């Protein structure tokens, strides 16, 4: 009898999409099931097709949306969202032209399904277990929450996939991230992933694909799993994956592009095979005790610079590695923070609730529940930006927009908004923000802006207090 080696989830998906295995001299040719496209990283790829007279090989496996450079300001009287930035307008027009020329389906600005690419793929049921999914966007890792192999690619590779539906790839290593235990009240999936990144560092998983396992992961909802997988890239991993289970199937059932009827049964049987085999071995394993996780916040200028919200900011002189010490000094200088400072109670100027990490309906519900009947501090500007038009409609149907508005927060149209600050939503130099997004790099939310990454609950608590607050105090966990 043939002996088969137990395979990881990654290995199964890799094998399943392999057109040509890799050799010493050539990378593997890997088939792509779903290619997501947005306005910022695609124009130069379509130019390549034009220069070479190529077509989009599978328009039925390609889907485009507008999200990064779109404004999120309220609609005008004509029902349209005004794009005042000339360059952004040209970029959006280019995407529209490209999609029309090449037959790629597109959700334009203001259309009913428009939204952040990593929010709409799952919510419309395009994202499914066992798929390979790519996008010219590093947070494509989000889709790994469904047991898909999903990763970000560069624009040249966007052209490769448009033209051939394939990518040239070297097989990655895998790292199991096992998290057992129960998250305490006030502690969210965002805190869990921020804690992991703070432990292994922003380069900790370079060259690896993460497979998240353990009871704490199993207990997460799909939207929480997306939050976790989303930030895998912040640990240096190109992808993060969670094997599909009943939670996954329940989420998918009835979504517009999910299979139905007999097709559903066939798909379900197939999806159930996408788990790591018993005894499959990983190149590395990291174990984290979920019970020990507290609400997290970042203090520095990369997502690995995170601490428990009540812990002191690290002190450079206590670091032995010269290069790390320099990095910490530079970060604290940029953030205008003192070594040993406690962030709890520090006044902030802006609170941003949004981004592909935390702009889904459950994120908005969590924040709204904490803010019901309360007011955003008068010194704070709070932006609430739903991840998609669908999320926005759903939130409005539940009256969440009223809660945010009554609290004094701005309720916006869907998009990336202040996560990337290329659409008019940005911090002023020197401003402090608590943000539910994924990157606190220098200037990420606006030139000179200073970002504290945290969960939607911490964001809500902070908005009300006007100062960095402990989410556990608003959920009675303390």
């Amino acid at each position: 009898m043939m002996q088969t080696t137990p395979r990881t989830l990654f290995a199964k998906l890799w094998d399943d999409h392999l057109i040509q295995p890799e050799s010493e001299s050539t990378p593997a040719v890997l088939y792509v099931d779903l290619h997501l496209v947005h306005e910022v990283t695609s124009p130069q790829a379509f130019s390549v097709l034009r220069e070479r007279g190529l077509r989009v090989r599978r328009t039925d496996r390609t889907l485009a949306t507008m999200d990064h450079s779109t404004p999120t300001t309220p609609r005008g009287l004509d029902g349209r969202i005004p794009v005042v930035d000339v360059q952004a307008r040209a970029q959006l027009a280019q995407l529209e032209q490209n999609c029309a020329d090449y037959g790629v389906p597109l959700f334009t600005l203001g259309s009913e399904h428009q939204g952040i690419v990593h929010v709409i793929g799952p919510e419309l049921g395009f994202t499914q277990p066992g798929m390979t999914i790519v996008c010219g966007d590093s947070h494509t890792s989000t889709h790994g929450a469904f047991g898909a192999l999903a990763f970000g690619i560069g624009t040249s590779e966007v052209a490769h996939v448009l033209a051939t539906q394939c990518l040239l790839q070297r097989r990655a290593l895998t790292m199991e991230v096992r998290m057992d235990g129960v998250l305490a009240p006030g502690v969210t999936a965002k805190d869990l992933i921020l804690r992991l990144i703070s432990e292994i560092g922003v380069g900790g998983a370079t060259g690896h694909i993460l497979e998240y396992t353990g009871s704490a992961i199993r207990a997460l909802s799909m939207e929480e799993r997306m939050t976790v997988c989303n930030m895998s890239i912040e640990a240096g991993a190109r992808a993060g994956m969670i094997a599909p289970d009943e939670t996954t199937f329940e989420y998918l059932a009835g979504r517009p592009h999910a299979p139905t009827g007999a097709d559903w049964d066939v798909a379900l049987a197939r999806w159930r095979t996408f788990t790591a085999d018993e005894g499959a071995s990983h190149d590395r394993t990291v174990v984290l005790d979920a019970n020990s996780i507290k609400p997290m916040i970042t203090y520095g200028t990369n997502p690995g610079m995170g601490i428990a919200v009540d812990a002191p900011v690290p002190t450079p002189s206590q670091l032995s590695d010269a290069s790390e010490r320099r990095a910490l000094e530079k970060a604290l200088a940029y953030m205008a923070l003192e070594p040993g400072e406690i962030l709890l109670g520090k006044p902030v100027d802006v609170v941003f609730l949004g981004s592909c990490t935390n702009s889904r309906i459950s994120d908005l519900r969590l924040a709204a529940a904490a803010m019901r009947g309360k007011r955003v501090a008068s010194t704070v500007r709070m932006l609430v930006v739903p991840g998609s038009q669908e999320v926005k409609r759903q939130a409005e149907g539940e009256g969440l927009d009223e809660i945010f508005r009554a609290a004094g927060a701005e309720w916006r149209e869907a998009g990336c908004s202040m996560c990337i600050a290329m659409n008019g939503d940005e911090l002023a130099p020197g401003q402090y923000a608590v943000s539910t997004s994924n990157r606190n790099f220098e200037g990420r939310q606006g030139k000179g802006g200073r970002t504290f990454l945290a969960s939607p609950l911490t964001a809500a608590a902070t908005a009300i207090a006007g100062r960095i607050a402990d989410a556990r105090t608003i959920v009675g966990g303390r």
Partner: protein
Amino acid sequence: MEPFVTLHSTGVVLPLENVDTDQIIPARFLKTTDRLGLGTNLFADWRYDAAGAAKPEFVLNRPEAKTAQLLVAGKNFGCGSSREHAPWALLGYGFRAVVSSEFADIFRNNALGNGLLPIALPEPAVDRISALIAREPAARFTIDLVAQSFALPGGERFDFHVDPFARHCMLEGVDQLGYLANKEPEIAAFERTRAGVS
């Protein structure tokens, strides 16, 4: 893509780890539909002050940096966003190679695909090179992609490794799309075996 065989150049050192692509080219410059013109805004927020004037203390603004085609940086260079605008901006400025002890995965791919050579060397080697540049900014290094070697002026050499396929493409100055497009029969055959699978 311009072929890359050898490079003989001075170097500049950016002694920082985890340099992210948001620093290499800030997002507000990504509203372009072109690859050109990004070099002017390479490291914009470190390079220019609020008024847009060059900050004299930043390495790229020193006179010796003007002609350097080699950048030496700390570990995990190019982390963060997948924007290919990062290698386009580095190339636009005039860099042809970057040395670091570790590159972020997507950045490395993007760089290789555009003829910007990412040279991964052990940390002590990177430190040696950085120290040498600090002492002698005019020191010229020789990078040989055929031999995969990085030579210091005194003749000392460090070997590096580049994926053989990417190396072939860089040496020839061809991009990877042509190779992939030739796989059309295999791709079509694969799709037939997967009919019905979403």
